[in-house]
């Protein structure tokens, strides 16, 4: 089952970490066939937020919300169950200074939901 591991942390603290630790973690996960995709992200200063309302496009500078801990990267993993996903997330180095949100992937292609008509 697929899970997305969203890596959060205060940018300064994450910035102080040694990239080689993250690369080593990534390499190990890939070697085990547990990692489908993974990337680090540029800081939130480079983020742009896009909204479409009633055909109108709004573009703003920055992340969608100002929070103390920011999204720093992600791992899309394959795990047997939540316990295994938790074990994997715990090994991601920024978990030591920030946190990792573990979210199951919804099988949208296999089980698409019909939406509700806007009221």
């Amino acid at each position, binding site marked *: 089952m697929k899970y997305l591991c969203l890596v959060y942390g205060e940018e300064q603290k994450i910035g102080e970490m040694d990239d080689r630790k993250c690369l080593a973690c990534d390499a190990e996960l890939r070697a085990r066939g547990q990692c489908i995709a993974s990337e680090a992200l540029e800081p939130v200063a480079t983020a742009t937020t896009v909204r479409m309302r009633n055909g109108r496009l709004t573009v703003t500078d920055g992340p969608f919300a100002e929070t103390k801990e920011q999204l720093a990267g992600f791992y899309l993993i394959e795990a047997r*169950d*939540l*316990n295994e996903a*938790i074990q994997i997330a715990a090994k991601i180095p920024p978990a030591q200074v920030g946190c990792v949100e573990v979210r199951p992937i919804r099988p949208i292609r296999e089980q698409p939901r019909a939406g509700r008509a806007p009221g």
Partner: protein
Amino acid sequence: MPEADIHRRIEAVYQSESRAVLATLIRLLGDFDRAEEALHDAFRAALEKWPTHGMPENPRAWLVSAGRFRSIDQLRRQARFEAFDPLVHDTAGSESAPEDLETGLPDDRLRLIFTCCHPALAADAQIALTLREVCGLTTEQIAQAFLTPVPTLAQRIVRAKAKIRDARIPYEVPAAAELATRLASVLRVIYLVFNEGYTASSGPDLMRLDLASEAIRLGRLLIEMLPEAEAFGLLALMLLHDSRRAARASPSGELIVLEEQDRSLWNRAQIEEGSALVQRALATRRFGPYTLQAAIGAVHCGAAHPAETDWQEIVSLYDLLLRIEPTPIVELNRAVALAMRDGPAVGLALVDDLLARGELTEYRLAHATRADLCRRLGRRAEARAAYTRALALTQLEPERQFLQRRLAELAAN
């Protein structure tokens, strides 16, 4: 066999076996709701068949088999009308070896407890789910016990089961490497249930007896399957607290503090059992906070009169407890023990230090403690102020009345 007789025996089987049967059905069917339906179907089948065919030699295995059969049968009928779902067919198609129906049983109840107490579930959901699935309480009973509206409690359980399903929390006993942390989660749930029953957090009754007994039953079940030091420690702690049940409140429901309790009302059997469990836990040398708190309780319960309490021993135990659990509440309780050993002034200095640091300023017992120590030192104005503060912070009627009595006593002198 007379109708009423067989019904009584089936009722007895339900009382003793339904939880174990459910635990196994959850493993076999892979779903809580399906397992609950299967359990009902199994007992319905028992009511149909046993009066005429007689009680089976192994009721538990019979019920598991009947429940599983009916559930698979239902799935097959559903599959004819629904789109092919590989997951459904997987469950329906797997023919578990007959041994699985038998040998898995003690482990299944452990699987169930660990799953209901999984840290990925919200804390209040862990409690609700454990009481529902492991203890077999109804949603209404649990809602009433926690003074929560029934729909809120029901939703909590629904969401917890959905999380187990959607996030795929596995139905398993944690591996040895994770056992200690996962056990901590289970122990915390059981202790929260006990605490809720022992000192109801709000409302007119000081103790909700059902929950305390339920927690003790859970504790017994746990040590049967998992003889770990802290599990012994927790059960001991609960038994030792519970042993004082009859002495904690007057017939009119007034709170009676430890010093003033009629110790002849304490339950000796529970004290003996609790003390023995403390010894077992301490002997393993792998004990933790629950064991130490239980050891402290054992010292209290071992004193025939308050004056015979070995406060030195209690202080030593608190010193140890503070090292492994350095929390403000432990500091507070240690301060009380130190006051008893060395005099109120010593205890008061520690309590004031805690409050000055900004700790426990909203904790009613911190102010009640300060009040009591000031009272013993004859510092009446300060005692009055602290009792008043504690009064503002308590939601328990018997506590409120106790604090008001103390205030009245101060005014009277």
